[in-house]
């Protein structure tokens, strides 16, 4: 057949190959493997790093940024950023608008615009306008508009024609204002008014300064110029002039306290319940699980609200404890069912049967086989329960059934922020972003942990 010529040793026996077995990997424990797989999952690891940062931010934030979250800075309401300022204190003085001694009560057809409208002083305490009289005027109407746009803006006042000046103290800030002063003849407005653009300088009134303890209560009357230093607000202020950064830190403390406290408690209780139920077995197990099923069937948020109402809020309470108790009352059955299911599944596993056959005592089986295997599932359920609790807190605070107002939480901050979201979006944006990113990170971490705990997904090569 074959007439080929082969090398001499072509059909010589070859040495038997030894390298047939698969390479042996270094041994590692279950949790070492979990940690290695988790580290390899870059998304989950990033989420974990982010969460550590957020936790550090809330726990140590109040040390690094020791600003009282309840303290108001009335000069700067709903600002997105406030730099540190040194403000002159506006001393109280009683300004009298110039008056006209007599007014010719003659009807004039076609009222003119007030001439020479100008501001005699313009501070964030008060803007004082004066103008020249208009013949035939019965009243002057004063309007103010903020910033750009068109029109006259909000009506500030209608004053009798005997006054030739007006003091505007309505929520004045150091920003551009467009004033319009227009005469009327008792019935109709004049066609033309006088316009003036004013940019008041920032000051703080003596009363505010005293209320905030920036100046002593008894200021010598002869001091003309007094300056006070006001703190900066890097993330701005809310509608009451409270520092947003301090409130976010304090709110985070509340949210995390609830977010960690409630799930830890109810998962612990649920584990005990589930373990006990599966340990006893029989009818007791059945009725215990039926009860758990009933509690699960209760609509969760509806009953959170109900329980929250039932516990009420006593004087000086924050409502945090009521929230946690309500969450524990409604949250435990899920983990009880989870643990029971896991235990029942594990009992059927061949490795448990094998260990039992070899005479392993119960405590050994529980310690060596049950706890490590149930542990993983419990930890994963915990990482999903925490964002759930933060969400629940936010939801309840949003509808006003959560943490009571002076105490901030991220949810109640959102609730506050949503009122003014059209004009001052930062008040909603920061807490909403913190909630969202934290919950996102927990979800990603939970996904990663679930994969990391699954030995079967391991590809080690």
């Amino acid at each position, binding site marked *: *057949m*074959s007439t*080929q010529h*082969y*090398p001499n*040793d*072509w*059909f*010589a*026996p*070859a040495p*038997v*190959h030894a*390298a*047939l*077995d*698969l390479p042996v990997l270094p041994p590692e424990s279950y949790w070492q493997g979990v940690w290695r797989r988790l580290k390899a999952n870059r998304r989950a690891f990033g989420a974990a790093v982010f969460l550590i940062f957020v936790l550090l931010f809330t726990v140590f934030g109040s040390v690094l940024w020791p600003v009282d979250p309840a303290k108001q800075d009335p000069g700067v309401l709903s600002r997105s950023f406030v730099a540190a300022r040194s403000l002159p204190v506006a001393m109280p003085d009683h300004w009298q608008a110039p008056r006209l001694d007599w007014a010719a009560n003659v009807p004039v057809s076609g009222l003119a615009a007030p001439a020479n409208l100008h501001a005699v002083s313009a501070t964030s305490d008060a803007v004082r306008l004066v103008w020249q009289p208009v013949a035939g005027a019965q009243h002057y109407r004063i309007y103010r508009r903020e910033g750009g746009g068109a029109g006259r803006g909000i009506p500030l006042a209608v004053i009798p024609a005997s006054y030739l000046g007006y003091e505007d103290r309505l929520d004045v800030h150091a920003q551009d204002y467009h004033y319009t002063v227009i005469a009327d003849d008792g019935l109709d407005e004049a066609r033309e008014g006088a316009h003036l653009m004013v940019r008041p300088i920032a000051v703080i009134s003596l009363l505010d300064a005293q209320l905030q303890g920036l100046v002593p209560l008894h200021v010598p009357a002869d001091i003309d110029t007094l300056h006070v230093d006001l703190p900066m607000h890097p993330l701005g202020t809310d509608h009451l002039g409270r520092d947003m950064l301090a409130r976010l830190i304090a709110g985070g403390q509340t949210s995390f306290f609830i977010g960690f406290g409630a799930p830890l408690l109810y998962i612990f209780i649920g584990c005990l319940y589930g373990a006990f139920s599966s340990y006893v077995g029989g009818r007791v197990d059945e009725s215990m699980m039926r009860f758990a099923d009933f509690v699960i069937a209760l609509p969760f948020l509806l009953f959170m609200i109900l329980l929250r109402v039932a516990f009420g809020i006593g004087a000086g309470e924050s409502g945090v404890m009521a929230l946690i108790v309500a969450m524990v009352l409604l949250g435990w059955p899920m983990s009880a069912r989870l643990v029971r299911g896991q235990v029942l599944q594990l009992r059927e596993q061949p490795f448990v049967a094998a260990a039992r056959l070899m005479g392993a005592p119960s405590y050994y089986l529980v310690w060596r086989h049950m706890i490590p295997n149930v542990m993983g599932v419990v930890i994963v359920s915990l990482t999903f329960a925490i964002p759930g609790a933060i969400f629940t807190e936010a939801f309840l605070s949003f509808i006003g059934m959560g943490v009571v107002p002076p105490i901030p939480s991220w949810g109640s901050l959102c609730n506050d922020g949503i009122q003014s979201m059209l004009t001052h979006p930062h008040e909603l944006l920061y807490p909403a972003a913190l909630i969202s990113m934290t919950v996102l990170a927990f979800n990603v971490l939970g996904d990663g942990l679930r994969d990391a705990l699954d030995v079967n997904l391991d*590809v080690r*090569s």
Partner: protein
Amino acid sequence: MTRPVLSVCDLAVSFRVRQGMVNAVRGVSLDVMPGETLAIVGESGCGKSVTLRTVMGLLPEHAEVLSGDIRFEEECVLQQTDAERNRWRGSRMSMIFQDPLSAMNPTMRIGDQIAEPLRVHRGLSKAQANAKAVDLLEHVGVRDAALRARQYPNAFSGGMLQRAMIAMALACEPKLLVADEPTTALDVTVQVQVLSLMKQLQRDSGMAIVLITHDLGIVASMADRVAVMYAGAIVEYGSVEQVFQRPSHPYTRALRSALPGMHAGASHLPSIAGQPPDLRRDIQGCAFAPRCGFAMQACHRQAPPVIAMSEQHSSACWLQDAACEAGRQFRDGGL
């Protein structure tokens, strides 16, 4: 000379995985004649299922056909689109699978599932197809067929389900039935029933069967010809008598002696040392050489050619080379 129903020529299939390519099938050629039963045997992972999945066009997305040609009744199957394949899949060529419970749709009545190919390929109405499905179920030996047809797969036992699978596959009277380990998931007694059912149906209809299995006992009782696969290639190909009585490849011989019962009274179960090669790597020489007790220098250097011992019997082994001294002893049963 009759033409083969199916002929596969030099087929190579690879899977893209994270670490590169797994060369699952490396140059397989085989013919299936009308009415015959060809068995393909080999360890799991040797590429026997992949070969037939390629024929059926059932490869997963990450698989790639590198080369080869598949002809089924003169149609070039590899060049066909799915729509073109659907003209013969389930009608002229059908397939049954290893685990009938997972191979059946759990949310569809058995009868409807059997009726489906009839409706699609034969254009029967729902009522006609369902009536035919009941007949088919009866034909494969399911009692109370009319009632059974209205049940869901979870009400069936494994053997019953495999009968239903067979009924479904045979609904359109195919020329070729591909059976991918049809009895592996079944109890031994049920295995025999299912196999004899297949045999009987083959006698009645004259269809060809390609039987994928790793059970040599099944091969002996069912097949006319055998192809032995190892690491993605056919190492020995011949009639059942030839391959079983005069195995010409050391792997076949090892397989045969690994059959329990062949060495009655042996103190230990014989096995083949080592593992199949890593198909991600290029294989130098013969893929079986590292595990082969007869390995020679040649085996490690160059892949052996396919050498025909007789008209129907061929083997890919250097021992069969005319110039090989050791081969003669091997054939004589020594070594």
